[in-house]
């Protein structure tokens, strides 16, 4: 069992994604009732995807604060502009 202790990098990726997401005018929370909402928000999925993408990069061997920072930035941009085009919401939702 491997436990990595580079919490700071994760927090950096998360923080940058959240800040840039708010700056790009993503909503903070999805609309109520939250479980049925399809809208992209800062908490979900931007925050989670930023941690996930950084985890993938760590696994591929790229660690460090610069990598974490760029991951956070790219995740926020991805969620704002690309996510809906990549996995569109179905028509009947």
């Amino acid at each position, binding site marked *: *069992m*491997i*436990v*990595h202790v580079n919490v700071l990098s*994760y927090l950096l990726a998360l923080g940058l994604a959240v800040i840039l997401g708010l700056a790009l005018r993503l909503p903070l929370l999805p609309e109520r*009732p*939250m*479980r*049925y*909402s*399809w809208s992209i928000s800062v908490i*979900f*999925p931007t925050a*989670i*995807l930023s*941690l*996930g*993408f*950084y*985890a*993938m990069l*760590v*696994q591929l061997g790229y660690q460090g604060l610069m990598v974490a920072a760029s991951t956070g930035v790219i995740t926020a941009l991805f969620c704002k502009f690309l996510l809906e085009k990549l*996995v569109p*919401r*179905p028509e009947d*939702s």
Partner: protein
Amino acid sequence: MNEVLGIIIAAIICWFNFVLIDTWMGLPENPGVKGAEVIGRAVKKRGGSLAGGFFQGNIVCSPDASAGTLLASVGSYAIGIPEGGLIAATLVYFGNRLCADPGYAGTTGALSITLIIYLTSMVGMKPEFYIVGMVLAIITIQGLAHPTASRLLGKLAQKMGRHTKMT
């Protein structure tokens, strides 16, 4: 820790993890896709509860908290903590959106079990216990007696205010 004991404890933890999160996220309330409605009504015809049937149908048709729990355990075992759980949560999220589901249940289940695996690893539990435990937990819902399991899920859905309003 003894392996059999570990698997039993992990199965109980996984059962509560995915059943509570899925019920909270509304799986018994609505069939997410048409396929879940087919399965739900088929279970009801065999003497089960419609809400429980929708729950079971939604598990089949989309990665939900049960999938998130299994895949995060798989990731934690072979990739490590926390990378494995986070990678699993990301992949489950994309799988959800491809299955016409917003994605809350799957990722929440994956993240919560990753935290639980990390915390219980300090008292001797290993990720492989959670993998086998999750398979056992899903068998109790999808593999033993569907009407009985669906009635149990229906009662829980009622208690948590998530019972379906369809008939």
